[in-house]
């Protein structure tokens, strides 16, 4: 979380991207010079199924305002089935966060292929806007990690 010069809330977005589709999709949106906000910081993982719920909670703990997980489209996983497990795990995790009263718009799963540079940029723009509307993450943070 940070405030820009106009004191407008600038959310911190952590994006986990699978190496084969979404990270390549993010590269493509760069190659095509498709803008999305600097708020988004990408972490490369081999497959979306590598993303442990603990990583997502940790990001929120340390001050992330939104976490998005991108992987290959169902059926296109480089490892055949990884994103199917991701889909179940994240569905249940997000449902649990929702059950605990954490705003459901702070989390998202999106399938972005290596060819979808435009979709990647659009998704990041949209997600950043949605998180911006929610304001800073207060419900799932560690106060000790808050920046002064």
């Amino acid at each position: 979380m940070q405030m820009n010069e106009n004191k407008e809330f600038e959310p911190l977005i952590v994006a986990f991207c699978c190496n084969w589709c979404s990270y390549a999709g993010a590269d493509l949106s760069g190659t095509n010079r498709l803008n999305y906000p600097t708020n988004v910081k990408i972490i490369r993982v081999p497959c979306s199924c590598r993303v442990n719920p603990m990583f997502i909670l940790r990001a929120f703990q340390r001050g992330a305002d939104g976490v998005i997980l991108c992987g290959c489209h169902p059926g296109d996983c480089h490892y055949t089935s990884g994103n199917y497990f991701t889909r179940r795990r994240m569905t249940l995790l997000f449902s649990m966060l929702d059950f605990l009263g954490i705003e459901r718009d702070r989390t998202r799963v999106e399938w972005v292929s290596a060819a979808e540079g435009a979709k990647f940029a659009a998704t990041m723009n949209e997600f950043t806007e949605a998180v911006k509307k929610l304001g800073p993450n207060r419900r799932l943070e560690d106060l000790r990690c808050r920046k002064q």
Partner: protein
Amino acid sequence: MQEAIINKAKQLLADGTVDRVIGWKKGEFAYDITPAVFGSAEEIDADFVYDDFTSANVSKYLVKETKKEGKVLVFLKPCDTYSLNQLIKEHRVDREKVYVVGIPGGPKLDIEKIKAKGISGILSVKNENYTLKIETIYGEETMPFSEAILDKCASCKSKKHVVYDELIGEDGEVLESNRFDMVEQLENMTAEERYNFWREQLSKCIRCNACRNVCPACTCEKCVFDNPTSGVENKAASDSFEENMFHIIRAFHVAGRCTDCGECSRVCPQNIPLHLLNRKFIKDINSLYGEYQAGEDTTSRAPLTNYTFDDCEASIVHERGVE
């Protein structure tokens, strides 16, 4: 019932079927019945207890006991048999080393509910025709049995034993239960209300780890929260985040494996309704991926290690529910 169980235990020890017995004995008070291992008929005669307070699920003790020499006798209530089946499925317990005697289930009593009536100095509790005669240092009190039963028994899901070598008494049926009512109530609240509910509950957590230690699904050799390389190691809930983190991750790790035995909430000294987290996962799994009862069998694939091509997307969380 206690007599029948004791006789069975002594008989199986005597004929060499088993070498040890997992049962229960009295704790400090008449009502804190604790799991215990018995090696001989003498020990059994001296300490073995089975009464209305004997609610502890002892299946988890088999993880360690079956690693030792010899065969172990265990008495399991219907709900406990689901836990054992799950442990067998996960190769945590060797079925060959266990002799299972199924015993009838509860309802069992909750001492907290008796104390909540303002009854203190309790010496003993007797059930006479579903009226509790409670002997205290101040004299005798009474209350209806039905008002003192454990929450987990009140929403009992099954009277059926899913694994056993023999039964004492009759086997029952899987029941229609109202166990998801409270989860539903919470789901129907606003996010703000849910957040406040859970903040109030989880902030009570003192990280005593009782929930983890009693849980028959939490049998890790080393818990991830004790693992210094996991990055989430912590021994105490020093902050609201860690209260959240521990309980979310614990519930997630047992999702699809939790048999809903309700022990976590029973043992929580802070009375946090932890079972609601597990039930939320069970309810979601049932509605999104089809009815699944962990521990019902030893072969089915757990929901989180399974998938279908047309599973719902995670966005379903956004699409349903109220705000």
